[in-house]
Each structure stands twice: as C-alpha cells, then as structure tokens.
C-alpha cells in the first residue's frame, strides 16, 4: 500500500468521525474548536484532490474566519444570556 493511499484512507475515515464529534459535543465551545480542526482536515482533503486554491481558501476562510466568527458569537451569546451587563465573557 502506498503512503498516499494510507494517508487518504486515514483522512477519509477521520472526516466523518470528526463531523460526528462536532455535532455530538457537549459544550458549544468544544464544537467550535472541533469545527476549526475539521476545516483544517477538509483543507487537507482538497489538497489531496489536487485543488490547492480551494484548499487555501478553505483553510483561510472556512477554518480561520468562520472559526473566529463562531467563537465571537459564543462570547456574545454568553454575554446576552447573562443579561448583557457583565464584564467577563467566558466560554
């Protein structure tokens, strides 16, 4: 078995597993962090599919910008839940 095939098989197996973990995580924060990791793996998958431009865009926008936006949203949700006048936004 060539290394490429092994790598592809691992990637193909990891993607559904990670997706399930993203959806089934207990804490929303865990979901978001795993989502960023998922974005990175999807970017690797695009590289293996010989689409480097899409991989770059996925890493930058899908994992980077969307991940940051989701984390920011989490912080705002926490603030909103606590009535909006707390100073510390954790989570």
């Amino acid at each position, binding site marked *: 078995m060539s290394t490429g095939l092994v790598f592809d098989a691992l990637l193909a197996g990891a993607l559904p597993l990670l997706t399930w973990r993203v959806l089934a995580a*207990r*804490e*929303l*924060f865990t979901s978001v962090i795993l989502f960023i990791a998922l974005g990175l793996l999807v970017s690797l998958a695009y590289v293996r599919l010989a689409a*480097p*431009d899409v*991989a*770059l*865009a996925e890493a*930058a*926008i899908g994992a*980077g*910008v969307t991940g*940051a*936006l989701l984390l*920011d949203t*989490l*912080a*705002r*949700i*926490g*603030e909103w*839940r606590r009535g909006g*006048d*707390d*100073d*510390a*936004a954790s*989570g």
Partner: protein
Amino acid sequence: MQRPASVRNGRRRYAPVRAVAAFLAAAVALGLGWAVLSLPEPATGLTGRVAAEMGNSGVSHPVTAVLLNFRGYDTLLEIGVLLLALVGVWSLRLSPARRSAEAARTPVLGYLVRLLAPLIILVTVYLLWAGSQQPGGAFQAGAVLAAAGELLLLAGFVRGYFRRAWILRLALAGGFGVFLAIAGGLALFGNDLLEYPEGTAYPLILLIEGALTVSIGFTLAALFFGSPPEAVAERAAEDEA
C-alpha cells in the same frame, strides 16, 4: 458553555427527526460518491478549453484565469454579495464587546501579534502576487489580511474603525467599485462586459485583484468585529459620559 436544558431534553423527543435527517444526509453522501465515481474516465470538462485559451488570459494559472478573466462576472457578483453580507450584519447594530481587549492583553499575546501582523501582511502580498502563476489570488490573500485585522482587534491594538469614516468606506467598497468601474468602462468603450482589450489583461487583473484583496480583508475583519461605526461611536460616547 453547555447546551441548555431545553436542548438536552429535546434530544429524546426529536430522535426520530434526527434519524430521518441522518438517513437523508447519508443517502445524499452516497449518491454524490456514486455520481463522482461514475464520471467518464478521460475527464470531459472545460479543462481542455481553458488550457487552449490560457495564452489570451494574461496570467499563467488556470484558476486565476477563470476567476478573473473568463468568469470575471461571477467574481464581481461575489464581491457584491460579500459587501451585502456586511451591510446585513451592520443592520443588526451589535454593540462592541464590553470588556476592553487592551486590558486583557497578556505580554505574550502582545509580542506575538506585534511579530505576526507584519508577517501576515507580507504573506498577503505574496499570495496576491503569486496568484497569477500559482495557487493564490485575491480571496486567499484577502482572507489572510482579515486574519491580521482579527489579531489586532483581539489583542486590543485596534479598538474600532478609522477616525475618518471615508477611509473605511473606501476600503470596504473599493474592491467592488474598482471592479465595477473597469467592467463598466470596458463596456462603454464597445467591448463586451469584462472583455479586456488586447494586452491589457494582466495589468487590469492585477489592479482588480489588489483592490479586491484590500476590500475582502477589511470586509471580513469588519464582519468579525460586528459593530457598525455608529455603534462604536455610541459606545465611545457612553464610556466618556
């Protein structure tokens, strides 16, 4: 934070719905896999036609040629959509986060951001420049530039928008504006929409991509920041009062 109790209890009630959703998702995934695997072996697509026209496109990377030349209209509309998304988020009038990011900046974070931000700008310019021969281009460069903006915001080096509103407006709308102006100008001079005249393809593409990179970077960073300039000004006035 944990999912609220309503969600945790709802999990039992909505198990059949989730089962149906899982089944449909799996069916679509398998269908897509079958469709991709049953594509004809020598790939019959537009790759050949694109490769044939590369000489006229002004760049040597086929993806950039398609995005900025052959299907430039799609890219023009994409930038418009991005700007619309920002307008949509601004219409929510979110206020800026209460906790001062500058106060929360640890020394390591400060050092790291000071180190990374100029490097990120360098990577942005490189991605933009390399996009004509290798993978890269305006979107990727713009997203990396947005990352620099987000870092600066998170570490508290930047607290809001520019003092003068017109700089922000120019940065946000400049990409779409330049692209539209070039498209419109070309159409006025008798060419088809976005048909670059002979020999001008490369400089025009570079100009458009440069404007797009700046705009995309600022738009994505503004999406991350979330609050419109009016809300920032309101909060500043409140803090002073």
